[in-house]
């Protein structure tokens, strides 16, 4: 669609390269005051008492807000209303906020923090999910009788009966670590009381509609009282949902109580302390194989640490369940996924959402199984992978889209030269200190929310009388370029020049709730809504113009920035005779085509609004909680990533040399941005695999900063070759699926497999840290 590759299209690009883009913390309003949070030294305590007395006497301090000041609900959440926006009586983790200080300046607010006196009676904490399940363990959620927060299961066939009879039985354990989203922009909110009683919220958050619900809940006010705007956001990756919404809610409460604009900008330390993380998983798989290398039965048990609050853990766990054995068809599967409450940091949504953890296990099992059976890793995958019209482990028959798993795997394997390089991988033997290895992994990913939630979205197209066009959708610009993609879709659908279209400044008061921009759903859901709106608009225009064009409405075509009668699309318009200066408003003359300007003039002169609302609802999905069976997602993205690396025998350092990422995304709309998603997803996956580790002791993050929490730098990254495979999806109105999450969910096992092929040592725990002693 981009006619000028390699150039990227971004409607926000100019503002961002010039520094003119105003992110939340860049905003200023007259009379604005500043808020800062007050944490406590506790991780688990009761009888919390917050004494604000001396803080209130501190210069500039206007108010110290605690749970007692909350007019609405103190606790809220997307699934359970359990997350305290201000601590009330109890502390359950280090990130709990006891109070909010509001002062004339940020400096004055910060100076008053030590003056808030917090006392409580400490309780024993629990910091290990297995310990947390033992009888007598401290109960984190005092109203519950155990620390088990959530349990999803799959019961397909007779896995436990079949397993013992299998020719080969694998018994493997894996673990993954906490991951910090590490978006470059920490959370921020600016809330402004408006004269009509509405609170305007400007926030660094990725779900404006959920933010509005959090704000309304805390304030005890209707949704229409809250208008959430979306300034440019400095990254989210799933991490700016709950916590970011709560930051907005606290600032909004301060704004309401003081009747002044309030800014609440997080430091990196606060952000890392309070924001939720990716769930660490412990996974135990038993896999039964036939002589032929076919997987006959799988039994899996997974334990995830949820921290003290539910957040979206059940949805994360659900995806781990639905995709519990990768892109393979297996008749007998028995899986249990548990989420356990602890006094560790809260965990929730992060790009990949329960799939990267599972894939880390499954795609290593694939290589382990291939070796056990004595076939190549590619052959093992070929024999077991999902096929056209085949069945997934959830019993879903894949017959509505092109199942391209093999095509995608072959593309990546060919590009990296997998078979040849596998043959010359070191397996621990090398004449030099460098051990060489190649590895790959495949995945399929259910696009969009699937059976975890309601999935619909809307778009508004509002054509102006001068030919310009305003577009708005319920999808949020996280930085990924969603607004640009929606504009490209609309230009294509209407056959008009992209320069006509402006994306309207989005607000929750303008369009209906479009859900959250997560789950690789932005392009597919927003695009579907844009197409629906464009279709309505075209129908309206066609019906109105058919008389002028002397044809039936269904014969009207939209192309070349014009509205055309039958057969006229290819004819060159006569600019002299058909310019906008020649009015067609009263013309009944037969015309073969009209310019877009003439079309608008014609419609407005007849009092017809060229305005359309469109909505898209995801096709039906289904799920049975007891058996874990159903049509989990309406479509899937197929992916393969491969890596070449060396491991230094002396230092243990892993150096990545080249990565290939191949993804069937249905259709690429903004090619450069698709590649950007691939590269960025791979980079985050590399961080998860090799560099990122949160040091948590007794529930506290020891160094909440980016100096110790090492996300990849440019020198950690190899050159990446991205391969876009396009099998348009018939159930997606635009043919496109998505790329945000697939890009991140499978490089970890690919690297683990390559490290094994280099060293002969298998690393089952993340992050992979090669101990040279292992290589002796």
């Amino acid at each position, binding site marked *: 669609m981009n006619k000028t590759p390699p150039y990227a299209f971004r409607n926000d690009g100019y503002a961002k*390269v010039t520094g003119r883009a105003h992110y939340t913390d860049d905003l200023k309003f007259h009379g604005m005051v500043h808020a800062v949070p007050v944490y406590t030294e506790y991780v688990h305590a009761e009888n919390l008492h917050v004494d604000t007395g001396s803080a209130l006497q501190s210069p500039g301090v206007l108010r110290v807000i605690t749970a007692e000041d909350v007019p609405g609900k103190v606790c809220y959440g997307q699934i359970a209303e359990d997350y305290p926006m201000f601590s009330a009586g109890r502390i359950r983790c280090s990130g709990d906020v006891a109070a909010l200080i509001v002062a004339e300046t940020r400096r004055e607010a910060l100076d008053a923090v030590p003056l808030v006196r917090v006392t409580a009676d400490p309780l024993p904490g629990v910091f290990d999910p297995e310990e947390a399940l033992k009888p007598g363990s401290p109960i984190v959620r005092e109203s519950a009788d155990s620390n088990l927060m959530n349990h999803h299961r799959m019961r397909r066939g007779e896995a436990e009966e079949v397993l013992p009879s299998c020719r080969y039985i694998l018994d493997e354990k894996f673990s993954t670590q906490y991951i910090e989203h590490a978006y470059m922009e920490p959370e921020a909110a600016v809330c402004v009381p408006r004269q009509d009683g509405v609170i305007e919220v400007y926030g660094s958050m990725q779900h404006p509609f959920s933010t509005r619900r959090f704000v309304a809940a805390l304030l005890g006010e209707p949704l229409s009282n809250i208008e959430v705007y979306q300034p440019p956001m400095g990254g989210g990756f799933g991490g700016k949902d709950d916590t970011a919404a709560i930051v907005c809610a606290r600032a909004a409460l301060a704004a309401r109580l003081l009747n002044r604009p309030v800014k609440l900008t997080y430091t990196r330390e606060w952000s890392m302390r309070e924001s939720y993380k990716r769930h660490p998983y412990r996974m135990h798989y038993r896999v039964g194989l036939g002589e032929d290398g076919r997987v006959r039965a799988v039994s899996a048990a997974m334990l995830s640490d949820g921290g003290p609050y539910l957040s979206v853990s059940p949805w994360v766990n659900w995806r781990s369940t639905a995709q519990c054995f990768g892109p393979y068809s297996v008749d007998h599967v028995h899986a249990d996924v548990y989420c356990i409450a602890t006094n560790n940091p809260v965990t929730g949504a992060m790009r990949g959402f329960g799939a990267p953890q599972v894939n880390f296990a499954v795609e290593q099992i694939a290589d382990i199984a291939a070796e056990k059976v004595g076939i190549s890793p590619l052959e093992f995958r070929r024999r077991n992978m999902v096929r056209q019209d085949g069945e997934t482990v959830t019993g879903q028959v894949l017959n509505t889209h092109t199942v391209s798993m093999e095509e995608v795997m072959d593309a990546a394997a060919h590009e990296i030269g997998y078979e040849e390089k596998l043959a010359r991988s070191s397996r621990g033997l090398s004449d030099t200190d460098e051990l060489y290895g190649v590895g790959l992994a495949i995945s399929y990913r259910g696009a969009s929310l699937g059976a975890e939630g309601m999935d619909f979205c809307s778009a508004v197209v509002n054509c102006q009388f001068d030919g310009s066009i305003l577009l708005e959708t319920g999808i949020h610009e996280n930085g990924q370029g969603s607004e640009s993609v929606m504009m490209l879709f609309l230009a294509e659908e209407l056959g008009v020049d992209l320069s006509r279209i402006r994306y309207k400044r989005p607000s929750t008061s303008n369009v209906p709730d479009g859900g959250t921009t997560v789950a690789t759903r932005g392009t597919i859901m927003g695009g579907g809504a844009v197409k629906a709106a464009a279709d309505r608009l075209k129908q309206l225009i066609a019906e109105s113009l058919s008389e002028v064009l002397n044809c039936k409405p269904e014969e009207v075509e939209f192309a070349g920035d014009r509205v055309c009668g039958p057969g006229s699309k290819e004819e060159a318009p006569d600019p002299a005779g058909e310019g906008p200066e020649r009015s067609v408003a009263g013309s009944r003359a037969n015309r073969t085509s009209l310019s877009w300007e003439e079309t608008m003039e014609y419609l407005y002169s007849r009092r017809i609004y060229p305005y359309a609302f469109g909505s898209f609802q995801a096709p039906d999905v289904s799920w049975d909680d007891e058996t874990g069976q159903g049509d989990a997602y309406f479509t899937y993205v197929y992916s393969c990533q491969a890596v070449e690396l060396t491991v230094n025998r002396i230092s243990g350092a892993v150096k990545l040399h080249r990565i290939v990422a191949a993804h069937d995304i249905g259709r690429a709309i903004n090619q450069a941005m698709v590649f950007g998603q691939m590269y960025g997803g791979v980079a985050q996956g590399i961080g998860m695999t090799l560099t990122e580790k949160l040091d948590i002791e007794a529930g506290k993050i020891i160094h909440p900063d980016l100096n110790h929490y090492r996300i990849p730098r*440019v020198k950690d990254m190899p050159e990446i070759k991205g391969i876009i495979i396009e099998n348009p999806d018939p159930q997606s109105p635009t043919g496109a699926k998505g790329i945000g999450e697939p890009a991140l969910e499978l490089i970890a096992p690919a690297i683990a497999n390559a490290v094994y092929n280099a060293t002969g040592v298998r690393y089952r725990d993340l992050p992979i840290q090669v101990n040279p002693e292992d290589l002796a």
Partner: protein
Amino acid sequence: MKTAVTVNGTLHELNEYQLGLKLIDYLREELGLTGVKNGCGTGACGACTVLVDGVPRRSCMIGTRSAQGKEIITIEGLENSDGSLHPVQQAFLDAGAVQCGFCTPGMVLTALAFLRKNSDPSREQIRQAMNTNLCRCTGYQQIVDAVELAASRLRTIQE
């Protein structure tokens, strides 16, 4: 004269309060140059990078006092008066190196200073030079592409 700093070509006198600020806070809060981004406050991310006498520095790690008498360039100082972009900025756009954009001003300034020293760098040299700045969105590949593209365009201009 010594209690003054030049920012984007304009001389600003500094009062006692301003002298006590971190350079990032002086630039953002006192001068309204919000293109200087605060990503970590501990010198790890480079989002707050500005040029101090042509050298990329993290403005969260230096006091305004130590910037006295020096010449500071922020991202706002690159744009031409007619609104057209510096070739490095244009290259970031064209190469698809911008996603969330929060690291972009620091990246652009780091690249600019580097290209003044090395007009024809290899990709490896670019990676070496840009290693001071964190980005969480792009995986850096299109940022390396952008610096390469900018280098070739700048060479064409000079020829």
